[in-house]
């Protein structure tokens, strides 16, 4: 099979992130970290694109996008 596989991943608009950490608390896979108190960073290897973080983020700066795996 050579079909292109698509996966969903979370992307943080880091410039607008307030580093509150709400996303970290809800991620079931522990895929998000707050880096140096400045912004959130998603570990793409762990993220399964469930969207929980995006729903929780009070600033709504997380987007779930499809990426080609």
């Amino acid at each position: 099979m050579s079909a292109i596989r698509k996966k969903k991943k979370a992307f943080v608009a880091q410039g607008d992130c307030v580093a509150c950490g709400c996303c970290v608390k809800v991620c079931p896979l522990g895929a998000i970290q707050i880096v140096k108190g400045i912004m959130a960073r998603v570990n793409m290897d762990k993220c399964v694109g469930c969207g929980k973080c995006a729903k929780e983020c009070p600033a709504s700066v997380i987007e779930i996008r499809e990426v080609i795996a």
Partner: protein
Amino acid sequence: MKKHWYDYLWIVSLTYLILGFFNILFAWLGLFCFFIPLIISVTKGTKGYCNRYCGRGQLFGLLGGRFGLSRRKDIPKWMKSKWFRYGFLVFFFAMFFVMLWNTYLVFAEAQDLRQAVTLLWTFKLPWQWAYHGTLFHPGVAQFAFGFYSVMLTSTVLGLITMVLFKPRSWCVYCPMGTMTQLICKVRNGKA
């Protein structure tokens, strides 16, 4: 997910707000929510307070989340813009210094103690039931009234934006959150 002891700090925040109805002098304890975040951000360069220990954030998360008291809508763009967040920080601190100045005037005996809690920097609520005299100078009580006003005002604002937008919308423009992020940016060389 495993619960930690610090996931229950919302109880402390709630207790704090309630105690202020009985004896205003408890308001002094609120200084912890001022100094702990600052100390963590200055010494460790993280927003560890927001990310773990802040009971106020947890309280909004609980009321808006578990109790469903939130429309769960996106916060308006301007509210998360830098100018609003920093502007609110500046305004908040300006008001804070006005409060300190009033406290000073009472200490200097240039002004009498006012047994009122000021909500949203405007509305003076009579609050004499929570003041039973003190062994200390009336200035000590004036600071307590002032500090409790700050705490109650931010709670009310937080509750309003919790209902209108997402549970923890307050965290977007919370002055402590903005300030600790700013400290982290400066400290970690990203400003």
